[in-house]
């Protein structure tokens, strides 16, 4: 199997920026990473495929992403007022395919959260569909398969 190490490096660099923006709550810049038709999905069941007709933890189109960012930043939501600190790490990047301008990539992801209840860890498998945009990418789809999402999570006040 021949590896396209340049594509892997480009994708990894882009996804590191995406995660860094979320950790640093640069939400407006984060919104700019998206295609307007893009979908941000946190499924409940990891074997689901028809996300539109299945209950998800989150299923955000452009409008819902903007509303969510407004909620996270307005100060109106009592759960966001303490502004939990998060640290995201990613590894095990793998390009799944590169077809018709869309690059699908999968990686391992851990989100560490510190709040008044202590330190919480959410491991997940992340899957992106990226489209080339000049020298960078836009996100066409981000699917976050958080471990235990079908069993029980806690409430969260950020984006996975």
């Amino acid at each position, binding site marked *: 199997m021949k590896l396209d190490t340049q594509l892997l490096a480009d994708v990894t660099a882009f996804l590191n920026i995406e995660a860094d923006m979320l950790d640093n709550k640069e939400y407006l810049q984060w919104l700019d990473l998206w295609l307007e038709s893009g979908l941000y999905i946190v499924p409940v069941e990891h074997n689901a495929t028809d996300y539109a*007709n299945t*209950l998800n933890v989150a299923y955000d189109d452009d409008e819902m992403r903007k509303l*969510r960012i407004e*909620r996270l930043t307005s100060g109106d*939501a009592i759960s966001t007022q303490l502004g939990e600190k998060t640290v995201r790490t990613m590894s095990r990047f793998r390009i799944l395919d590169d077809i018709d301008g869309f690059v699908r990539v999968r990686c391992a992801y851990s989100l560490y959260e510190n709040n008044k209840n202590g330190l919480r860890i959410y491991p997940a498998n992340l899957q992106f569909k990226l489209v080339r945009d000049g020298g960078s990418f836009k996100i066409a789809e981000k699917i976050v398969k958080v471990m235990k999402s079908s069993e029980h999570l806690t409430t969260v*006040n950020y984006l996975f």
Partner: protein
Amino acid sequence: MNTEIKVKNLNSTADLVLEDRVHKSLYSNPEIFDEELDKIFNNTWVWVAHESEVPEAGSYKTASIGRQPVIVVRDRKKNIHVMLNRCRHRGATVCEGKSGKTKAFTCPYHGWGYGLDGSLRALPKPEEYENILDKAEFGLVKVRTESYNGMIFATLKDDLESLDEHLGGAKKWIDLFMKQGGGYPLQTLGDHRFRFPGNWKIQLENTTDAYHFPIVHKSFIASVDEEAAEVFDFLDGEGYVEDLGNGHSVMVMIPELVDLEENLDEPIPERFEDLAKSLADEGHSDEEVRRLVRAVGGSGFNLNLFPNIACSMAFFRNLVPISANETEIHHIAIGGKGAPQAFNQKRIRLHEHFQGPMGFGTPDDGEAWERVQAGSMAGTDGWIMVNRGMSKLSTSADGNVKGAVCSETGMRAAYQKYKQMMSVESGK
């Protein structure tokens, strides 16, 4: 008003519940929690499933009665059974996972096999049990089960009143709630599950607490259009809370949406115009479009059924006590079986918008509940007040105690039932 009632003069948990207040130790004392499992969850009808969660022969769902794991299953004859999830040999669970479909339950430890009705069918190397084990006596332990309008309840208490008597005045409201399939039978559409570090009664109270809505859910209200925000601005409206007896209560927030089969000629709300158009484009009649659109946002009330289930506007809220200071909540989405895809899809999106771990509503509820649990630890003595609206009670058309929509009438109803059950001596 005397706010200095000293708990040291009280003798039992039941004494910690007064008409207008409950003692804060009810949220955190592990001995009280164990007593609740014994006297409440082991002694009443506990909701375990909606019938649509076990639609076919072999469909099962795992659930719990208090902390006891049970299996809800539909057998080959389509009868529903609730059974303790415990092999009769050495005690292993015979069923894992949330739900699924199976032909039988097989213990993973030594291979004892049970039928869908719980009967012990076969076990490996039976010769060592010759003359000492009658398979007919070693089926999975069945739990008494009764249903009302699709809601399946189970009880460990064989001589308990019927489910029909237990639900009493709540049945009328269950019937109304089930109309939100929009002309189709109600069907569950998956669930959100999350845990919060707090006592189960904090959630029980919350389902009948309209008072918090404009405060806690300010960011949710900001995320909907003006017309919807007006619908949710119900504290000054004509809503009310009724004590339905047996710990049950209903909180009507939006009286216009009590009966979803009425007022079908009302204008289509702007936020549902796209749905109405896509339903019409699919060829649905104007009457059907109106029925579906009226039902899509759910009912205008929360029905709180003591102790563990609520029919809450547009979903089922099932609470599972984990420990004195931890509770698991299931927000179960519902729609119509066989209803147009656009209708069920809209209901799913509305559910995701407010409910669950990343909803625009639930995390703020969770924050308030966590603060209650943490704050209730302050001081060596202290009370939680549930007296709001006590001086302005009236009698409803059904003869029930009735208070304003933001009164704490529903909480008092639940706590008086709690007090009655906790007053019974253990083992009775």
